[in-house]
Structure formats: C-alpha cells, structure tokens
C-alpha cells in the first residue's frame, strides 16, 4: 500500500469524535429550527401586504410553513434511512430471497424492498439479478412495488405533515398491496411474458464481492452523502408540490372539494388513480398536496388512492422496465397494482 499517495483525501483524516459531536450538534440545531417553524412562517407571512385570513394570505402562510418543515423532515429522514440501509444491499437481499419458500417470500420481498438501497436507474440489472438467481417473478415484483410505495420518505413526511394514524394506515395497506400484488402475479405464471433475452439468460452465480466492514462513522458518511444527493435532486419537486398544496389550501372552496373528492362520488377513486399514474413526482412532492387535500375535506380513500398511484405507478419506471418486460406484462403489472389501490380507496371511503 502506498499510503502517502492517499494523504490528499481530507475526509479520511476527519477524526471520529468530530462525526459524533457534529451529529449531536446537528440534532440539537434541527430541533431548535423545527420548533421555530410556526413563529417563522407567521413572521414571514406578515411581511406580505395581504391580510392573513384572505385566500392569498392563507396560501402564502401554507407555503412558508411547509417549505422549511418538509426540507427539515426530509433531511432527517434521508439521513436516518441512509444509515439504516447501509446494513442492506441488493446482493445480500438476493441471497436471502433466493433461499426462501415462496409463501414467505412475498412479504419478505416487500419488506426488503423497503430496506434495500436501490435507485430506479439500476432496477433493470437488479431485476435480472433476482430472476437469474431463481427468485420467483412474483417475489421480485413484491420487492419492486414495495420499494417506492412504502418508502421511508413518504411515510416519514406523512407522519410529520398529516399525522401518525394516516401514516400507519398507509404503511399497512401499502405493504399489503405489495405482498398481494406480487403473490397474484406469481400465480399467473407470467415468465413467458418476459423479453426473450431475459428468459434465455442463464446467469451463473454472481461473483461475490468481499464483504465490506463499515464503522458507524462510515455509515454516517453514507447517510450524509445521501442527504446531499437526494435533497439536491428532489428539492424542486418539493417546492412545486408545496406550491400546488398552497393553492389548494388557499383558493379551493371546501364545497368544490367535497363534490370532486368527497366520499359520495364513487367515481372519484378510479379518477384519482387514472390522474395519478402519469403524474411523475416522488413522495416528497406529493405529500404536501395530500396534506392540503385532506385539510379541505377530501375523502381519505380517494386521497390514499391518488397518493399511491402517483408514487407506485410511474411512467418513467415502466419505460425503464420495458427493457426486460413485454408490454403485456407491464400492462398486467399496472392492472394488478391499480386494482389493489382501487380496493384500498373504496374500502376507506366506505368505512369512514
């Protein structure tokens, strides 16, 4: 080892205590900032020459309260998730799933879909890696559905903006849909609808990488890296989502909302799903909209259906998966997941 050539890496030389101390300090600072959100937004809103209780005033207050709040929450969630996920990897997940009996495989696939770090840009190699290792197609789908659908960012923001009850409902139903949709697709025997080259693929066991031993500081570094990368990417979606939420909050009359998204209109659930599929944003962008919709009296089932279809069914992801799945299989995939979302929506509109 030529240790002297590596002296140029400044992050290597940062001592551990600095990381621990920095984390503690950042935690305290986070809490202090979080507690100033309401005074800050009140003060910032008062700078505008509009009455606080006018439509415009309400919209501005919503926006100025939610932007710093969502960014703060997002930073914390992404960091904690980054640290937790450093214990998981697609390679380990594959090893776990390929040795499991089918019936256990579906919920396990869904759970690991939430915990395993993967970006949609590598979902094709991941898909092939799973299928070629003998993991059933249905279990692979459970994994792929749960990843975005029950992601920690969505759950954490739902918890912070709307409350723990709805976050818990979302978790339970998102997880159930992922499991059942994978199971249903597993029962259909869809292997013949994979693209030809994927079916013919006979990848042997992948060369295993030596297991890396990470210290807690390494994991914190991963978390911080994630914060930098994800916040840099999603902040614009967050701002757009909150702006839409603010407009809804300030301007849409409750009577209109009740007519369109109330529990009475049976067609509102399928309409929410259809509108949600082509909408491409991420959980961080859609939840401020959800917050505003629920605040205006939109039915929970309709809103859940909208949120789930925006997050779980996205056109860009389908286009990526087109490399390995035939159009027919993609259509089945959308239909099965949409059916689960519809059922959830109708159920909640009926019981609440």
């Amino acid at each position, binding site marked *: *080892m*030529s240790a002297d*050539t*590596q002296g140029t*890496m400044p992050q*290597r030389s940062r001592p551990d205590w600095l990381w621990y101390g920095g984390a503690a300090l950042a935690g305290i600072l986070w809490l202090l900032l979080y507690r100033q959100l309401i005074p800050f937004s009140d003060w910032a809103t008062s700078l505008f020459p509009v009455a606080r209780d006018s439509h415009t005033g309400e919209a501005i207050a919503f926006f100025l309260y939610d932007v710093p709040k969502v960014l703060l929450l997002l930073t914390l969630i992404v960091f904690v998730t980054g640290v937790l996920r450093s214990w998981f*990897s*697609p*390679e380990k997940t*594959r090893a776990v799933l390929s040795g499991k009996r089918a019936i256990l495989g579906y919920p396990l696939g869904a759970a690991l879909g939430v915990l395993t*770090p*993967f*970006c949609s*840009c*590598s979902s*094709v*190699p*991941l898909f*092939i*890696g*799973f299928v*070629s290792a003998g993991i059933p197609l249905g279990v692979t789908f459970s994994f792929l559905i749960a990843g975005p659908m029950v992601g920690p960012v969505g759950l954490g923001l739902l918890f912070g903006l709307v409350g723990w009850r709805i976050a818990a409902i979302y978790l339970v139903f998102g997880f159930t849909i992922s499991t059942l949709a994978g199971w249903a697709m597993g029962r259909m025997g869809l292997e013949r609808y994979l693209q030809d*080259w994927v079916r013919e*693929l006979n*990848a042997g066991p*992948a*060369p295993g*990488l030596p297991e890396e031993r990470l210290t807690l500081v390494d994991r914190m570094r*991963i978390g911080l*890296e994630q914060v930098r990368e994800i916040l840099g990417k999603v902040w614009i979606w967050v701002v757009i989502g909150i702006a839409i939420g603010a407009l809804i909050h300030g301007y849409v009359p409750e009577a209109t909302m009740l007519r369109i998204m109330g529990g009475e209109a049976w067609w509102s659930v399928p309409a929410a799903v259809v509108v949600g599929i082509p909408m491409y944003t991420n959980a961080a962008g859609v939840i401020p909209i959800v917050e505003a919709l629920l605040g205006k009296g939109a039915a929970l089932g309709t809103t859940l259906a909208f949120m789930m279809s925006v997050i779980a069914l996205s056109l860009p992801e389908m286009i990526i998966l087109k*490399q*390995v799945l035939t159009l027919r299989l993609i259509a089945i995939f959308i239909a099965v997941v949409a059916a689960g979302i519809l059922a959830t929506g109708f159920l909640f509109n009926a019981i609440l």
Partner: protein
Amino acid sequence: MKTVKVYGPGCARCETTAQMVQDAATELGVKVTVEKVTNPRDIAMAGVMSTPGVAVDGQLVHAGGLPDAAKLAGWLSA
C-alpha cells in the same frame, strides 16, 4: 496497462465513477483504459445489481454507489 470497466446505465454517478477512475490513474501514473458498460444485459451478466459497478482486469471490485477514493487507488496500484 489495466482495463477498467465501469458498469452502469449512464446515470450521473456512473459518469462520475468513470471520471474518478481516470483521475486516480493519472495521479498514480498508472496506464488504464476505461470502458463504460451500459447494456443492461452485460451489466447483469457481470453480476452487478447495484450500479455503478467497477471491474479491474475482469475482476469485479465494487458495486453500488461511488467508490471510495482511497480504495480506488488501491485497486489501481495493486
């Protein structure tokens, strides 16, 4: 002369990784050819599930996320 393959479908991090390899090689004075593998089939066949992946002279050394600069120097000078 080392052959380094960077596996990835062309995402931002894959580009960065290829650049990191190039830079590290220049700094160490090691001759390398960097090859970007973007075909999903080839990526999967190499056993890479999380991109970007890095292989040096046919040996997979890294998968998932940006490689650590110090480790990268280690692979190139080994």
